[in-house]
C-alpha cells in the first residue's frame, strides 16, 4: 500500500514537472487568491472558457499537424476567410447552414492545398503555411475591400451567442464536443496511432506500411477544417467578418500548442496538453485584465511567458541530448 502511494506520488510529480503549463496555470490560480478581484466568480470563469473557445478549437486542429512533425501557420487567415465567406453568402440570401458548410469546406480546401505542398511536395511546413496565410489575408481583404462585413440575418448570431440552460455558453460546449471528438480520433483509432508513428519517425512509419502521405495530408485538411469552424463561430459571436482578425492568431495558437508540451519534433503531445497550453495564454490575459494591468505591459508579459516556456522546452531537450 505504502509503495503504491509512493509510486503514485513519484509518477504524479514527474507528470507535473513535465507539464510546465499545469504549473503555470496553478501558479496563476493561486496568485489570484491574494487579490480581491472578480476572478473567482462563475461568470468570469465561464467567460474565460467562452473567450478561449475559438482559439482552442483552432489549436485542436493545429495539434494534429504538430504531432505529425509539421505545423500550420495559415490558420489565422483561414479563420477570417471562413467567417467572411459565410457572412457574405448569408447576406446574399443563402440558407445559414448551407453557407456555414461552404465556409467550412473553404477551410478544408486550404488545408488540402497546405497538405499537398507540405506532404506531397515535401516543403518546409512552417514557411509554406506562413506564405499561404499571407496569400489568404490578401484574398480576405479583396473579398471585403478591407471593411468589416456584418451579417444581416440575426439568426446567424444565435449559433455562438446562446447559453445552454442559461448558464454554460454555447461556445464552450462546441469546444468540448470538438475536443472530445479529436481526442477520440487520436486515442482510439488507427489513424491517430499512425499519426503519432509518422511524427516520431517518418521513414520508419513509411517502411512499416503506414500510408504516411495520406495520413499526414489528412492532418492538414483537418487543421484547415477546424480553423474554418472556429472562424464561423468567431464571426457569429461578433456578428462580423473582417480581414484584420487573426494576424497573431496563428503564431499564438502554435505557441500555445508547444507551451502545452506538444513538441515540434513530432510524435508527442495530445489534445489535453494543447488545451492546457493555450489556456495558459488565455488565462494570463484574463488575470492581467482582472488586475487592471495596462495593455502594453500585458503584451510584454505575454511575450516573456512565450519566450520563457519555449526556452524551457528547448533547454529540456538540450539536456536530454547531452545526457545521451
Amino acid at each position, binding site marked *: 500500500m505504502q509503495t503504491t502511494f509512493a509510486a503514485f506520488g513519484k509518477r504524479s510529480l514527474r507528470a507535473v514537472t513535465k507539464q510546465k503549463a499545469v504549473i503555470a496555470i496553478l501558479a496563476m490560480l493561486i496568485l489570484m487568491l491574494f487579490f480581491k478581484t472578480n476572478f473567482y466568480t462563475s461568470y468570469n470563469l465561464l467567460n474565460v472558457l467562452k473567450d478561449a473557445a475559438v482559439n482552442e478549437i483552432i489549436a485542436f486542429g493545429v495539434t494534429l499537424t504538430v504531432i505529425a512533425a509539421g505545423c500550420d501557420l495559415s490558420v489565422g487567415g483561414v479563420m477570417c476567410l471562413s467567417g467572411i465567406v459565410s457572412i457574405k453568402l448569408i447576406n446574399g440570401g443563402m440558407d445559414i447552414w448551407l453557407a456555414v458548410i461552404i465556409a467550412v469546406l473553404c477551410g478544408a480546401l486550404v488545408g488540402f492545398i497546405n497538405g499537398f505542398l507540405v506532404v506531397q511536395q515535401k516543403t518546409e511546413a512552417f514557411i509554406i503555411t506562413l*506564405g499561404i*496565410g*499571407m496569400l489568404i489575408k490578401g*484574398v480576405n481583404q*479583396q473579398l471585403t475591400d478591407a471593411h468589416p462585413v456584418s451579417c444581416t440575418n440575426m439568426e446567424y448570431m444565435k449559433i455562438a451567442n446562446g447559453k445552454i440552460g442559461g448558464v454554460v455558453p454555447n461556445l464552450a460546449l462546441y469546444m468540448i464536443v470538438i475536443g472530445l471528438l479529436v481526442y477520440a480520433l487520436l486515442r482510439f483509432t488507427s489513424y491517430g496511432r499512425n499519426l503519432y508513428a509518422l511524427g516520431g519517425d517518418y521513414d520508419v512509419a513509411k517502411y512499416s506500411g503506414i500510408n504516411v502521405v495520406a495520413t499526414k495530408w489528412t492532418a492538414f485538411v483537418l487543421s484547415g477544417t477546424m480553423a474554418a469552424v472556429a472562424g464561423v463561430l468567431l464571426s457569429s459571436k461578433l456578428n462580423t467578418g473582417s480581414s484584420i482578425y487573426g494576424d497573431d492568431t496563428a503564431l499564438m495558437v502554435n*505557441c500555445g500548442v*508547444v507551451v502545452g508540451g506538444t513538441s515540434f519534433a513530432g510524435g508527442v503531445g495530445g489534445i489535453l496538453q494543447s488545451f492546457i497550453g493555450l489556456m495558459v495564454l488565455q488565462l494570463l490575459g484574463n488575470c492581467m485584465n482582472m488586475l487592471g494591468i495596462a495593455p502594453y505591459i500585458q503584451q510584454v508579459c505575454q511575450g516573456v511567458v512565450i519566450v520563457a516556456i*519555449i*526556452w524551457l522546452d528547448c533547454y529540456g531537450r538540450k539536456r536530454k541530448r547531452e545526457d545521451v
Partner: protein
Amino acid sequence: MTKRFSLKNFLLNYLVLVAIVLLVIITIMVEPKFLSGENLTNIMRQFGPLSFVSLGMTFVIIGGFIDLSVAGIISLVAVVTVSLIDPLGQVQALIIGVALGAFLGFLNSMVLISAGALTQAEALFITFGMSAVYSAIALIYTDGATQHMSWLTGNQSIFDAIGSGTVGILSVSFLIFLVSLGALWIFHNKTYNGRAISYTGGNKVAAELSGIPIKRSVVLIYTICGLMAAIGAVVLFSRITTAAPIIGKGYETNAILSVVVGGTTLKGGKGSVLRTVLGVLLITLMSNCMNLLGVSPYMQIVLKGSILVVAIWLDNRKEQ
C-alpha cells in the same frame, strides 16, 4: 569538358532574373511611363528600408535560422532614435539607435544559444515572442503615440539627407545600401567568420564536429540582422518623417519573402546577399509595376503570397 547547356537548369537558377526582365518588358509595353526619370527615382527610393532588412535576414536564413523579431526591432529603434534627436543631438541619436538594433539582435542570439535552440521552428517561436516584447516596449516608451520629426527643434540634417538627399542621380539611401551590400558581401565570402555561417547553415552537427564555432556564428548572424534592421528603421523613418511604434509591422514576412524569392534556400547553407538584392528588386519592381497598371493593393498581397509559395516550392524542387 563543358557542361551541356540545359534550358531547365538555366531557368531554375536564374528564374528571378527572367521574371524581372519579363515584368519590365510587359510593363513598358502596357505603360511607357515606367521608363520616365521620375519613376526610376521612385523605384530607387522604394528600394529603401526593405532591402536593408532583407540583407540582414539573408544571413539568418543562410545560417539555417529565422528571425521574426525584426518587426519589433524596427519599431523600437525608430521610436527611440527619433526621441533622442532633441536631447542628445542627431549624431549620438543615430549611433545609439543603430547600436540598440545590434544589441537587440545580440539578445536574441543569447536567448537562442542559452536554450540550445538549433532548429528553425524553435527560432521562429522564440523570436516571435521577442518581437512581441520589443514592440510592446516601443508602445510603452511612446505611450502609443506617433513621433513626428517635424515637431523636433534639434538639427536633423543627417536624417533629411538619408530620407531625401541625392548624390548625383543616386539617392543617399541607395548609396548606403551599396556600401552595406559591399561590406556584407566581403564579410560573407572573404572572411572566416562569414564562411563559417554558411557551414553552420549547411549542417550544424557536421560544422560543430569540424571545429566551426557555431555559437559565434549564431551571435554574428543575429547581431548583423539586428544591425541591418536598425539601419532599415533609420532609412524608413527618415523617408516618411514619422515614427509610429508599430512602424515595423509586416517587415519580417516581406524580408523573408525577398530572401527566399532571391533564391537563398530556407534549408540553410546556400545563398548570397547578391541573390537577395535580386529578390528585393523583383518585389519592388512588382509593386511599382502593379501600381502603374492599377492592380488593387489587396490583389498585390495575394500575388506576393502566391509568389512566396511558388518560390519556396521551386526552391524545393531544385533540391530534389
